C-alpha cells in the first residue's frame, strides 16, 4: 500500500553537464553513490518520501535533466510544472558556477506564470583541494537571487538529505501560508492522502446519523 503523504512536490534538478545532478539524486533516492553515471539524455525521473515533521510526509517527484545546452529544448518543457528546483554547480568547475545566472534566466522565461523555489547547490564539496569557487562568493550570488546556498557531496553523503529536506520544508511553509496554492492543470504541488480528511468525513457521517434519529 502506498504510504500516506500530505502533499506531492515536483522538483527539478538543473545545472551544467557533469556537475553531478544524477549522482546527487541517486544518493538521495537510492542511498548509494555511483562512481560512473551515464550522461543523462533527456529527462529522468525519481521519487522519495520525506518526513518534514513527525507524521507529516511529503512525496517528492524529482526530475533529473540533461545538462548539455542543446537538451534544453527538451527539458524546458518540464520547468513549468515544478514547484522547486536544485540548481547545481560543481565547486571544482568555475564555468559551471558562472553559468548559474544563465540557468536562472532560462527557467524564469519558461516557468511563467508560476515560480520555482530554488536552492543553489555547490556540489562535489569533498574535492575541497580542487575548489575553484569559494563558499563566500557562492553565498553572495545565492543571496542576490534570494536563494539559499548549500554545499553537498554525493560521494561522501554530505548535506544531501539536508539539501532536499530544507527545500521541501521551505516549499511546505509557502504552501501553508498560502503563497503557493494547488492549481488545476499545474503539477507542482498536489495534495495527497491525509488521515485527517478520513476522520472528518467519518464525523460528518456520524452527525448525519444523529440528525436522522
Amino acid at each position, binding site marked *: 500500500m502506498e504510504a500516506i503523504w500530505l502533499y506531492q512536490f515536483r522538483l527539478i534538478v538543473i545545472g551544467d553537464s557533469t556537475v553531478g545532478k544524477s549522482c546527487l539524486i541517486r544518493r538521495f533516492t537510492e542511498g548509494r553513490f555511483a562512481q560512473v553515471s551515464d550522461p543523462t*539524455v*533527456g529527462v529522468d525521473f525519481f*521519487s522519495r518520501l520525506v518526513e518534514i515533521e513527525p507524521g507529516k510526509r511529503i512525496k517528492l517527484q524529482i526530475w533529473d535533466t540533461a545538462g548539455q545546452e*542543446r537538451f534544453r529544448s*527538451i527539458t524546458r518543457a518540464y520547468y513549468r510544472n515544478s514547484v522547486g528546483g536544485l540548481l547545481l554547480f560543481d565547486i571544482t568547475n568555475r564555468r559551471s558556477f558562472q553559468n548559474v545566472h544563465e540557468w536562472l534566466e532560462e527557467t524564469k522565461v519558461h516557468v511563467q506564470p508560476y515560480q520555482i523555489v530554488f536552492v543553489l547547490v555547490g556540489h562535489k564539496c569533498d574535492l575541497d583541494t580542487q575548489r575553484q569557487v569559494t563558499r563566500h562568493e557562492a553565498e553572495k550570488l545565492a543571496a542576490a537571487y534570494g536563494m539559499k546556498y548549500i554545499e553537498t557531496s554525493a560521494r561522501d553523503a554530505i548535506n544531501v538529505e539536508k539539501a532536499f529536506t530544507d527545500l521541501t520544508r521551505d516549499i511546505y511553509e509557502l504552501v501553508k501560508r498560502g503563497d503557493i496554492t494547488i492549481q488545476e492543470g499545474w*503539477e507542482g504541488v498536489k495534495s495527497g492522502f491525509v488521515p485527517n480528511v478520513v476522520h472528518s468525513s467519518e464525523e460528518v457521517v456520524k452527525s448525519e446519523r444523529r440528525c436522522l434519529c
Partner: protein
Amino acid sequence: MGAQAPGCSGVASHPGSPHILQPVVAGVWGTMAQALGEDLVQTSELQDDSSSLGSDSELSGPGPYRQADRYGFIGGSSAEPGPGHPPADLIRQREMKWVEMTSHWEKTMSRRYKKVKMQCRKGIPSALRARCWPLLCGAQVCQKNSPDTYKELAKAPGDPHWMETISRDLHRQFPLHEMFVSPQGHGQQGLLQVLKAYTLHRPEQGYCQAQGPVAAVLLMHLPPEEAFWCLVQICEVYLPGYYGPHMEAVQLDAEVFAALLRRLLPRVHKHLQQVGVGPLLYLPEWFLCLFARSLPFPTVLRVWDAFLSEGVKVLFRVGLTLVRLALGTTEQRLACPGLLETLGALRAIPPTQLQEEVFMSQSGHTQRQPPLTGAQRGPV
C-alpha cells in the same frame, strides 16, 4: 564494390535505405501502421554471435571477477551462447550468404534489396558486422570518395570547447565494457578521436552527448575511420536534425510517435495521457542512443542491423513494441496508476521478452513465433 551514394551529405541517393529519405512524418506515417503487422520472412534460425568482440582487452590478466562476456562487457551475462544458439553449419551458411551479397554490393542493393533487408532482420553474423555496417549505411562510399578526410580531421586540433565537453564524457560511455575501461585504452581514445573529428567535420552541429553511446557501439565493431563515417551517415542521413544544436527532429518524431500510439495502441495512449507521460519523457534516450542503453546488448545489435538497412522506422517499431510490452494489457495499466509507475513499467520489461529472437519477432521484424492474436493479447 560500394553503393552508389556519391556523397555523404545524404541526399536521396543512398540505396541502402530507400525509406529513410522520405520526409520523416509522411514516411513514417505511411509505413508504420502497416509495418507493425507486416508479415515478414519465416525464419527458424537463430543468428550467430559467437565472435570475439573486444577481444583485445585493455585489462591485464583478467581475473575471474573481471571476466568479460562475449560482447566485451565485464560481468555481463552473455558469456555463453543463448538458448537455441544456431548450429555451426547454419552460422557458416549465413556467413556465406553475406560474403556473396557483399562481394557485389552495388548489384545486390539495386536488384535484391529485399533479400538484404530480410537478412538484416534475421541478424548479420557477428563476424561480418564490421564489413556490413559501413556498406549498409553508405559509410564506405563516403570513405572511398574522401580518403584523406578522416586522417586530416584526426590530425587537426579540436575546438577547445568541444574537446573539454567530449573529454568529460569519455569515461562514462559503457564503463563496464572492457574496451572502454581504461582512459588510455583504445576505446576511450577512439571515442575522443571520432567525436572530435565529427565536430571538425560539422562545426555547426558540434557534439551532442547522445552521440557518445552511438559512437561507442560503432567502435566496438569498427576501426575509428569506419566508425566516424558511420556516425556521419547516422547523424546526417538516417537521423538528420536529431543531434544538432536545437534537436528539433527528435522532438518532431516524438510527436509522430504519440500520434502513432493514438492510432495503434489507443488505450495505452489514453493511459499515458491520463498519467501525464508524454513521449519526451522516455523517447529521447531510446531514439537518440538507438536503444543502446535501453535493451540487452545482443538485441541492440539486432535492432541496429535492421535500422541500418531500413532506417528510422525501425526505431518507431521498436519503441511501439516496448510500450506495448510494458503497458499493453489492462492489468499492466491498472498496476500503473501514476506517472512514476508508468515510467517504471517502461523500464522494467522482463528480460525474457527482450531476448533478441523474441523481441525481433515481437517488433514485427521476424516471424519466428506466430504473433499473438488480438484476443490472446487482450485489449490494448
